[in-house]
């Protein structure tokens, strides 16, 4: 598809008329999805799709569009020309956009990550027998994901990556669960079976009689997977400069009222892991690392060029929505082997579920505990807990109540597939809290 994108972008940009500026983007995938319930195949299939995006600027006005690509050059050029014609007819009718940014980046980049992944009709045989008699539910996703960007100034970027993931839950007859994701770029059958065995062993802990705990404030450890859910909230009404300026950010209190989080909390946008491309939809390349919160202080936000123009600040070439594409939280000193001892008596949370702002401006998040969550007494796991609702502010649990962070950052791949398979991952340690509010 890279060849197709290059040919279309070259042809279409040479057909532009005087005064027109164009940004083009492509996103696509050829993916296999196999859905598993009770360690059997529930649904299976393949999706092969690509979309070509347009951003047309003319006479201080802007409009955008996208069309599906067929993979056939002549057909797709015809679709692209029709879309350009539609955009030309529309753009002149629109009001001027004072904050639109003419694409001027002439940078180029190319990244192709070849993987080694089982053929789609081999996947059931590769993944299902190892599940044995365990009740496993989840989703296998594999194949190529690609993104590209080109503009009328000559900028051009291409990023493609082969990968696979099996995101799954193991479930006991008493409906206690353990969650894990086995992912990578090169399939290794032995490594998969070993990883699965480890999960099955963890499930045995869930066979202990469950404990129901009362609402209240508890010493709590949240493992890396749960922390990644919390960090993902920073991309929704959080680190965006526009959101802060428009009074729709939980970090407004840091900017406007001087509030701080714990010195132990440092959050960066860090592309060095290579999971996600550094270029955005406009073909602008973000710095490899941007520190957003350093030792509890707000240092920087994510700023798109559009926001930069509107508010007179410097762009760091964030995406248009100014969400994090490569979140990374700094590690601390707590050894993972010492977590239970450091927790003492309290709650150990492996995963969280269905987070939402209960008060975005106040920084308060509500959500549920889920999967392997335990009651711990004197440094020993005593029992899995019944799921609890939490409702607490980042200014509390990532503030004075943040006691320690672990010394190991784990990679939590984004296995979301709403707009297609995601490329990103959240890299973070676990956190030990002096107090965390469980409410229902």
């Amino acid at each position, binding site marked *: 598809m890279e060849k197709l994108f290059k040919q279309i972008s070259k042809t279409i940009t040479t057909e532009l008329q005087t005064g027109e500026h164009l940004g083009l983007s492509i996103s696509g995938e050829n993916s296999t999805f196999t859905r598993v319930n009770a360690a059997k195949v529930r649904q299976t299939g*393949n*999706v092969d799709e690509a*979309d070509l995006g347009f951003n047309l600027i003319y006479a201080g006005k802007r409009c955008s*569009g996208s*069309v599906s690509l*067929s*993979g056939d050059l002549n057909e797709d050029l015809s679709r692209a020309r029709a879309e350009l014609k539609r955009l030309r007819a529309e753009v002149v009718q629109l009001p001027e956009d004072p904050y639109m940014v003419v694409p001027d980046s002439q940078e180029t980049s190319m990244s192709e990550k070849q993987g080694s992944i089982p053929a789609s*009709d081999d996947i059931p045989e590769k993944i299902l027998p190892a599940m044995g008699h365990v009740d496993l*539910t989840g989703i296998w996703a594999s194949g190529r994901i690609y993104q590209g960007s080109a503009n009328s100034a000559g900028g051009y970027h291409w990023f493609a990556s082969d990968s696979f993931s099996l995101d799954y839950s193991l479930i006991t007859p008493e409906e206690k669960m353990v969650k894990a994701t086995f992912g990578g770029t090169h399939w290794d059958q032995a490594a998969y079976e070993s990883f699965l065995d480890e999960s099955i062993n963890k499930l045995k802990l869930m066979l202990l009689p469950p404990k129901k705990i009362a609402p209240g404030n508890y010493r709590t450890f949240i493992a890396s997977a749960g922390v990644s859910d919390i960090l993902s909230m920073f991309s929704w009404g959080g680190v965006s400069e526009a959101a802060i300026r428009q009074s729709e950010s939980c970090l407004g209190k840091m900017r406007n009222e001087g509030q701080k989080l714990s010195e132990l909390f440092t959050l960066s946008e860090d592309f060095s892991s290579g999971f996600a491309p550094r270029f955005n939809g406009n073909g602008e390349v973000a710095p490899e690392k941007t520190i957003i919160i350093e030792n509890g202080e707000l240092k920087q936000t994510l700023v798109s060029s559009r926001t930069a123009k509107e508010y007179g600040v410097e762009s760091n070439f964030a995406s248009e929505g100014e969400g994090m594409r490569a979140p990374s939280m700094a590690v601390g000193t707590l050894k993972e082997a010492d977590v239970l001892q450091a927790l003492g008596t309290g709650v150990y949370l492996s995963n969280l579920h269905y987070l939402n702002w209960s008060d975005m401006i106040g920084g308060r998040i509500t959500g*549920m505990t889920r999967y392997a969550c335990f009651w711990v007494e004197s440094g020993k796991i005593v029992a899995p807990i019944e799921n609890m609702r939490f409702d607490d502010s980042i200014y509390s649990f990532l503030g004075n109540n943040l006691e320690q962070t672990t010394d190991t950052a784990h990679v939590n791949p984004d296995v979301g597939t709403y707009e297609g398979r995601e490329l990103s991952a959240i890299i973070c340690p676990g956190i030990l809290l002096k107090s965390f509010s469980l409410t229902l």
Partner: protein
Amino acid sequence: MDLNAILSGIDVRADWIGLRYVKENTGFRLVRDGNPEANSRESKQGLMVEVLVNGQFAYYGTSRLDRAGIQSAAEHAVRMATAASKFSLHSFGLEARPVAKGSYKSPYKTAADAFSPGELSDLLIKASSELKVSDKIVTTNAMARTVETESHFVSSNGSDVEQQYLMVSADYSAIAHAGSITQKRTDGGLLAKSFQKGMEVFNEAEVLDRCRNIGAEAVELLSAEECPTGTLDLVLAPDQMMLQIHESVGHALEIDRILGDERNYAGWSFVRPSDFGKLQYGSSLMNITFDPYVENEFASYAYDDGGLKAEKEFLIKEGLLIRGLGGMESQLRSGLDGVANFRASSWNRAPIDRMANLNLEPGNSSRAEIIGSVEKGVFMTSNRSWSIDDYRNKFQFGCEYGKLIENGKLTKTVKNPNYRAISNPFWRSLKKLGNRDTFEVYGTPFCGKGEPNQIIRVGHASPLCLFDSVEIFGGA
């Protein structure tokens, strides 16, 4: 595309083949603070090729629409079905894809192209201006979204269904700020005004009137008291009941969830197969219907994506759970009665059990009777926060705007109103149900579920409701 000709030209060995072509144009316009923020149109088209081999379905969704591409997709799907059939969760037959012939078209008065891009932009700029009722309004947004969808389904056992939709969503919002207080009002919750209607939705006088009210209420909230904390009576407006029905009834009754398909993602359900016909879900006032034919409701249609004809059905009658939300595959797997709700978000996803129009039927109480019956309580409207557990039990929801109810009267405005409860006890505490005059229809484009993930449109309609003794609280 002559889909029947393409189907007859496919050469593979399969027990059944289905083709579902979908073309969808989504227009989106957003004006922020009087300036254009987005003017976009996304145009997607593709074909879902589905086959049945040895009792196992498999699919190949492709945007390659030439004959060679479709033949290749079918061959690939057959290989996948064959390989997976050694590990099938359930062995299906043709009864999972009933023969369907028919068509559907959204009802509307004014076509999508009746407004030029310039005219719609002008209206949104005026709306943005009307929202800014004072200097305390720091951000305004006016948003319009139109979706035109064509779907054509044919199958080797004779199905031929064409459905055309026009769906319009709009939202107008204002953020007010003073000192350290920030408050936001929208038009009934984000994109709650989502309908199968035409551009008549953008009646200028009505839109501008609503915008002035939204702006005024955002400013009003700046000086409002915090919502009180306590166990109080709760009156919910229909725009919040939409979310309440969706999260604590709809998802819980999806049969694929009950059968465990979603346990790794959206979650399970507290409802068990044995509960149908036995579980008293709510008070005797509670009647929940799956109704695909409420005029202009967002998720109306004639056939689901498995070819099952859509009919109105009661899921909960006088509080008793009697039927689930499950299409033919779930009905065959579970033996439970279901509905025509086997739906895919587009051509690139396989259908699963989804809500469509899921409504709480109106009762007999007037608005005055409901408010008048409350000694101490809170009225809440317009959802702003939602979260519920994976069994659809423990929920916490927040609204944009509240009013105290004292001695049968609405009194002070309160900000940051929230409540939390557990689904069955909450619905059993439904003690007054509004009449048809209080009944309102809403919808949302954003119901997420499934692996791979799918966002789908749903509609919900409800009267005003009074719940007894609910845990209520304010903001941070």
